[in-house]
């Protein structure tokens, strides 16, 4: 499977490394060239030597998306630090490039829930954190 990940922060970089380790073809797009270091950190070989791809550019720019290989992506992950950027580029991946599997990281649980009802798969770390705090609270006070 060809996986395109936009945004190589903690989440994006870790997801990229584990996708590559699982044998997938992985391309990462980030507008900060230094974010490449997160892909290499603690690894025996560099990201490229391990078979990964890295492109510098912003996920809303069509040239950057094409250079990163969006036209043949099977899975598109939008994991930049901006909720709105993720929601917009995920919809571009769905509607313009017809990518079947698209996931957007959305910190705001309310926006994540609404876009989920519109047919966009979202992951909201905030919602997970809230749920974990709630279950911890229940466990302690039980």
């Amino acid at each position, binding site marked *: 499977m060809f996986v395109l990940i936009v945004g190589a922060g903690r989440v994006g970089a870790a997801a990229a490394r584990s996708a590559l380790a699982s044998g997938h073809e992985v391309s990462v797009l980030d507008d900060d060239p230094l974010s490449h270091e997160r892909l290499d950190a603690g690894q025996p070989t560099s990201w490229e030597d391990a078979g990964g791809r890295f492109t510098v550019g912003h996920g*809303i*720019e069509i040239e950057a998306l094409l250079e990163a290989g969006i036209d043949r992506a099977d899975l598109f992950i939008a994991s930049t630090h*901006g*909720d709105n950027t993720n929601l*917009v580029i995920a*919809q571009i991946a769905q509607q313009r490039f017809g990518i079947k599997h698209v996931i957007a990281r959305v910190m*705001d649980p*309310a*926006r994540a829930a*609404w876009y989920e009802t519109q047919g966009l798969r979202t992951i909201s770390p905030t919602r997970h954190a809230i749920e974990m705090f709630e279950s911890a609270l229940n466990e302690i006070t039980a």
Partner: protein
Amino acid sequence: MYVIIAGGGKVGWNLTRELLAKNHEVTLLEAGRDRYLTIEQELEHQVQYGDATELWVLERAGIQRADLVIAVTGDDEDNMLICQMAKEKYLCERIIARVNNPRNREWFELLGIQPTVSATDLILRLIEHEVPSYGLVHLLDLRDEQLEIIEVEVAEGSPAASVQVADVKLPEGVLIISILRDGSGFVPKGDTVINAGDEVLLVLDPGLEDSITAQFAGPMT
């Protein structure tokens, strides 16, 4: 009319002032704390503090009853999302979005966000208007209706100069709707003679511009 404006920059603030002066009800949303406090000194309760891409901020501003939502923040993704949610979640009938980077216009259209306003495009149009060598000026695009209104100056020696309106050779789908002469405009009749130097307004189906310029342009020099 109840209008919600997202983004209290120069555009949003002044737009709010103008609409209030025209007796509309307006709420301006500004996400920057310092900027909000500055604006609040003048607009008081007509400005609210908050990120307009958050649903509760939009709902607090009363988006359910808004007649028009205008997104003029400096961030295109924010403007797209605000308008998309206004239209699709809150079923607001009218939206206007600002495009900061003209290269993003394609994405606004992809997400069904229209109309859009871009300063770059406005300046380009102004240049077209001020530099006569361009010949043809787009005045209005009615995209949904598939119609355009353009303005063209009649050059000396062009096929249309000194010819009656009915005799100008125009393709199907083009109609002369007005003539501007000596600073005033009028609606011509079939026997009105077009003069060199007139500015002619035409309504047309998109894509017919090229077939029109030949009629109004002067002989090649």
